[in-house]
């Protein structure tokens, strides 16, 4: 009798373990190509970035999964966010975010999705920037530039993107810190911004090192400061903003991956792990170095914190700049 009872208990125990096993060891594996949504058209910043990153994943042999880049441009991040909202709960959809995703939510009344609904997957890079002037400009340091701006408020001109772009945010931050004032001229494309500077129609601009590198090397542009946490490689003589005497908070251009609302945690873990391995793999790292992107991997929980704190910071900056913040 005892034997039978023992055997029965053993069998029941095994049965319980048997059903619990898959729950404990549950892993996700993509069963179809994964869509990665980009908020620009082909050739735009995030588009070029993610395509290159996906290419490095192949080179480093990190995964056999198929990825498909889907362009959902329009309204800044609105169209892309809309698409993610439609794909709630899906395990095979990702999106590439940029800082504009955070600012759009703050100012767009009809924004389709709040940041709190989005599933953070992985922070990837932070992109630094530099303040540049033409090489024949009289300003040799940032201090020169700010002094000139203070002397004649509104006279100096900066070319940049929309009033929510990183260049604009840096401007608000700097202007409120230094009490200087200069005007901001929005151009929709990077090409126009650089042309405006090169043609002498504006005095300076904030530009990514990958775009400006060649102009600087050719002697057409002069960098004044770097806008980054850590010095960018290749520009040893260019001080950081805080080193140049402007201890303002850094305004990074963040790029990384998010997922639709209610994304299953197993899927999130899978992708987070994949890109974590990527951040340590040679081809990926080489690409980041070549484009002077800061390799700053963030796990999902860290990314959530980073996005939330950035949203709070940005809300303060935009309000202070007089923009209408709706959230």
């Amino acid at each position: 009798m005892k034997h039978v009872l023992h055997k029965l208990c053993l069998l029941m125990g095994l049965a319980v373990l048997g059903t619990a096993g898959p729950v404990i060891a549950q892993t996700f594996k993509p069963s179809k190509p994964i869509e990665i949504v980009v908020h620009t058209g082909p050739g735009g910043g995030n588009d070029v970035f993610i395509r290159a990153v996906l290419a490095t994943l192949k080179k480093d042999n990190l995964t056999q999964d198929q990825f498909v880049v889907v362009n959902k441009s329009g309204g800044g991040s609105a169209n892309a966010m809309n698409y993610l909202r439609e794909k709630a709960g899906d395990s095979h959809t990702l999106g590439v975010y940029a800082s504009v995703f955070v600012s759009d939510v703050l100012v767009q009344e009809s924004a389709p999705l709040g940041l709190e609904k989005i599933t953070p997957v992985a922070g990837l890079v932070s992109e630094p920037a530099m303040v540049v002037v033409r090489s024949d400009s009289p300003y040799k340091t940032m201090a020169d530039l700010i002094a000139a701006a203070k002397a004649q408020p509104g006279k100096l001109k900066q070319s940049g993107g929309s009033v929510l772009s990183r260049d604009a945010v840096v401007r608000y931050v700097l202007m409120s810190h230094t009490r200087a004032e200069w005007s901001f001229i929005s151009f929709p494309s990077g090409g126009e911004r650089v042309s405006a500077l090169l043609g002498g129609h504006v005095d300076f601009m904030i530009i990514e090192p990958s775009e400006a590198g060649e102009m600087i090397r050719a002697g057409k542009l002069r960098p004044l400061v770097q806008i980054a946490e850590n010095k960018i490689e290749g520009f040893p003589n260019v001080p950081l903003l805080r080193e140049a005497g402007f201890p303002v908070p850094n305004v990074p251009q963040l790029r990384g991956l998010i997922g639709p609302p209610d994304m299953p945690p197993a899927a999130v873990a899978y992708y987070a792990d994949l890109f974590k391995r990527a951040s340590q793999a040679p081809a990926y790292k080489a690409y980041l170095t070549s484009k002077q992107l800061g390799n700053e991997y963030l796990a999902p929980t860290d990314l959530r914190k980073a996005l939330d704190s950035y949203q709070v910071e940005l809300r303060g900056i935009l309000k202070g700049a007089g923009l209408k913040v709706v959230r």
Partner: protein
Amino acid sequence: MSGFDGLMTGFAVAMQWQNLLWCVAGCFLGTVIGILPGLGPAATIAILLPLTAAMDPTGGIIMLSGIYYGARYGGSTTSILLNMPGEASSVVSCIDGYQMAKQGRAGPALAIAAIASFIAGTVGIIILTFLSPVLADVALSFSSPEFFAMMVLGLSLVVLLAGNSMLKAALSTLVGMWLTSIGTDLFSADSRFTFGLSNLLGGLDFIVIAVGVYAVAEIMSGIERGDETKLLPIPKGLRAYLPSWDEIKACRFAFLNGSIVGFFIGTLPGASSSISSFVSYGIEKAVSKRPQMFGHGAPEGLAAPEGANNADSSGAFLPMLTLGIPSGGATAMLLAALITWGYKPGPLFIQDSPELFWGLIASMYIGNAILFLMNLPLVPLFAQILRVPIALLFPTVLGISVVGAYAVSGSLFDVGTLAGFGMLGYVMVKLDFPTAPLMLGFVLGDPLERAVRQSLTMSQGDPSILISRPICAVILALAVLILISPLFRRKNLRTSLSD
């Protein structure tokens, strides 16, 4: 390296058999993409980029560039045969091209488009070869005030596109300008006329409006007319597929006009490709001895914009290769490709990588010739599309329109918008409102507004910046001339009629 030496080196590179093959492949693919709305060179280059990463860079950039300028050749085919623009820059070709096809001259129309494209492309590349550094500086001296002047010039052309009712044309233009302001304002992040729809935050897309107002509306009109099975008169015999000598002579100035205007506007980053075709068309009509023929099948009305959109793509290479500045999505992708291969596009590019630069330029001559040879014999083949029974052709055109609209941002919202504009186009035709000014207003409205606001910020509120700079003053004077030109014409007409 002087232009000529460089070119010789370049030809040596471009004539290597594998580079020739890549050139053919790119041109062919480009033509196909140009024909079909829904696929643009930027998207195709983006898709092919990872595949080309393993290629030899010279062959790769030759092929990808071939896709870019090849698309300009293909765009005219559907514009002429079906009134459906395959590409934003082909919209203007619909105006006279489709009318020519309706008159049974589809073959000559396609041929003239090919010839104009070839001449303009060649002229553009020649200018690129020998005048790059000079023109790069000239292009840089153009900024918002000059842009403003150019937009005013463009809008003054509405006077010439008016047909017989200036009132209706003006209303069309203004509505077009309203439509383009829908969306998020660049300068203040306010959203205008979006009715709370997040889909409208990015504004309306030009190709969706164009395909709706031209292609979809034309189908509705065709059904109303009760067109019979054979859509349009089919040319008979090979001679009917070729333009007459008179027609080619009429286009003499148009070939030149398209090349120069197209190239120059193409060099300006921020000028969309449709601007050059509109401006070129307008200038052609302004100087023509028979302006009343425009809009009714004037071959030069087709040759000018067709040439312009090809020269425009050559022009776009100027800032790309001399400064590393992209002019749009496609050139941005080409730059990304160069960077992937380890090149550094920028002011030092020509110095650092002369073989690639000159090889690319030389391949553009070859590509242009290849495209011409590919497209001209295909004219009778393309014209056969007209043999397809209307019962199948019309639904197919609607299907292609859907594909094209959906490809804009992958949302059915755009397809719905397409249908809406189809209805608008139909109503406009019924009420005899000219549609070209609507397109013109849409294309120019936004750049005009931006240019004004940018200029005034530059001058800290002083409006004289818009007329005081020399280039601006010249262009604005031209605009005024164009605006008052109809008065002279009517005078001449009256005096000649009364004789």
